[in-house]
């Protein structure tokens, strides 16, 4: 696999250039607001993919760290005067790093389980964090929530949040891209394919999984931090919301888990559609049926997700267009 290809560079630069230009071209608040949510879910799905897509361990508990990131921002505002405006964004890497480090011992225990058990353990983790958010009143103020001071941006209010979400998404994509092309990525894919076999080949499976987990959690917490700052109020129900995680996971599945662009494409298809349906048909709740219909359609037509299904289609066409090498075994070929 080549490290950087001109096509890949052009694709990445083009997509993120267009996304960065979007809030300067389109200034309507509600549209930029949809953009913020789209980027948030794209970032969450990409961060989830970094761990679950590459290792095959389906985590349903990343929303716990999204909530912890949001609370970390709110609590930082309360106890440390970090200022308003753009300055809280600069604290995001520290929040991400701290949450990632704290999550490692938890992951070390959770990763002793596999498959469905791991998914359920991580889901339980989410509910434990939600209960802690309700009950640790001295820190989280329980169901009253944590208030975050409203910033006074000179420009369009949503734009700074949009750009902050875009920056974290770009960072998540960069990390995913780098990991996939590194030895760590190869180790993770080996674990996903057959963990026992990987162990038998000397792959340090626990260490590799923990690194991927920490990177994923750190990015998730950073996104949670921006989200907390965006909403001004952080409540347990909304900060540690299973639906946020389920939404992000579904987007990753829709786009193609384990691929670089899949989760982002899944979010870019689903979130605007969801928001549009919600505004247009929200009162009747019919949009939920349409939402379910999208997933049924994807399962029937593109069961592996958009990106892998399209890649299969392209490779099948290329395969038909070229002669397949003669791969039949012969004694001469195999044993000579």
């Amino acid at each position, binding site marked *: *696999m080549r*490290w950087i290809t001109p096509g890949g560079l052009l694709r990445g630069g083009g997509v993120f250039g267009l996304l960065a230009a979007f809030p300067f071209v389109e200034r309507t608040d509600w549209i930029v607001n949809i953009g913020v949510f789209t980027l948030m879910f794209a970032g969450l799905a990409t961060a989830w993919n970094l761990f679950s897509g590459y290792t095959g361990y389906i985590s349903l508990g990343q929303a716990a760290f999204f909530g912890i990131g949001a609370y970390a921002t709110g609590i930082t505002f309360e106890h440390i005067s970090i200022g308003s405006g753009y300055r809280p964004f600069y604290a995001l890497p520290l929040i991400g790093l701290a949450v990632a480090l704290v999550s490692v011992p938890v992951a070390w225990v959770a990763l002793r389980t596999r498959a469905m058990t791991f998914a359920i353990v991580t889901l339980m983790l989410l509910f434990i964090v939600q209960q802690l958010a309700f009950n640790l009143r001295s820190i989280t103020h329980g169901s009253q929530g944590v208030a975050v001071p409203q910033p006074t941006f000179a420009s369009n209010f949503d734009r700074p949040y949009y750009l902050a979400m875009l920056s974290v998404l770009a960072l998540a994509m960069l990390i995913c891209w*780098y990991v*996939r*092309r*590194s*030895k*760590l*990525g*190869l*180790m993770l*894919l*080996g674990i*996903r*394919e*057959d963990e*026992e*076999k*990987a*162990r*038998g*080949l*000397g*792959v*340090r*499976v626990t*260490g*590799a999984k923990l*690194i991927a987990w920490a990177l994923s959690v750190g990015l998730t917490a950073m996104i949670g931090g921006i989200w907390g700052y965006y909403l001004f109020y952080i409540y347990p129900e909304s900060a540690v919301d299973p639906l946020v995680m389920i939404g992000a996971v579904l987007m990753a599945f829709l786009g193609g888990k384990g691929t670089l662009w899949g989760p982002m494409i899944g979010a870019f298809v689903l979130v605007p559609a969801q928001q549009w349906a919600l505004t247009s048909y929200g009162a009747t709740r019919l949009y939920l049926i349409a939402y379910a219909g999208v997933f049924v359609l994807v399962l029937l037509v593109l069961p592996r997700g958009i990106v892998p299904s399209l890649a299969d289609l392209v490779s099948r066409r290329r395969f038909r267009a070229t002669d397949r*090498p*003669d*791969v039949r*075994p*012969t*004694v001469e*070929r*195999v*044993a*000579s």
Partner: protein
Amino acid sequence: MSSAALLTAEGLTKRFGGVVAVEDCTFSVPTGTITALVGPNGSGKTTVFNLLTGYLRADAGTVAFAGRRIRRPDPIRLYRAGLTRTFQQARIFPELTLVENLVVAIQQPWRTIVCRAIGRDDRSRAFELLEEFGLVQLAELRAGSLSYGQKKLLEFATVLMAEPQLVLLDEPTAGVNPVMVAAIETRIRELNARGLTFLVVEHNMNLVMRLCDPVIVLDHGTKLAEGRPADVRNDARVLDAYLGA
């Protein structure tokens, strides 16, 4: 043939509930040999492999490799020490290319995990082995697209990436066509001539008699016989175990 034992198992015992899969099993694999571990179905051969390589924990007994007693056999540490294995059903990484399958098996220090997945040296080593195993034309294909026999060859090639001292082959020719059996036999002979030691579980007795020396026979989890192929073939207890005569 050198008489020094590269691998020694002493008193290995493994129970699954009330079933004794392996009981007080003692044997050794001399350095430089192709040792066979044979026995009827359910005699405990694969369980012994799993105990030796740390995939199962023994209830009793010890394992020593290259003169060192392994207190708690662990696949990762044993692989790094030079003991590798294949599985009864060919286990490969189907979504990875053949080259990637091989490169995963290179021992990587932690500091290199951020380096490029397949470095120049990794690629050249992988291609060298693929060439040797007649799979070089398929190097960039997904391993899942290979035939079963080719998957067996790929798995065999993979465990050689770390330049081991001892390879445990679990039924290397099971479900493989005669052309591929000949190829696998040739590879084992060549590698053995270069000094690599093998412990082979195999049901193809013609191959065992041609290729292996010594031969260890298991039955009901215990060692029944051990010795030269001709002696083992004529052992009444072995005939009884295989044929129920």
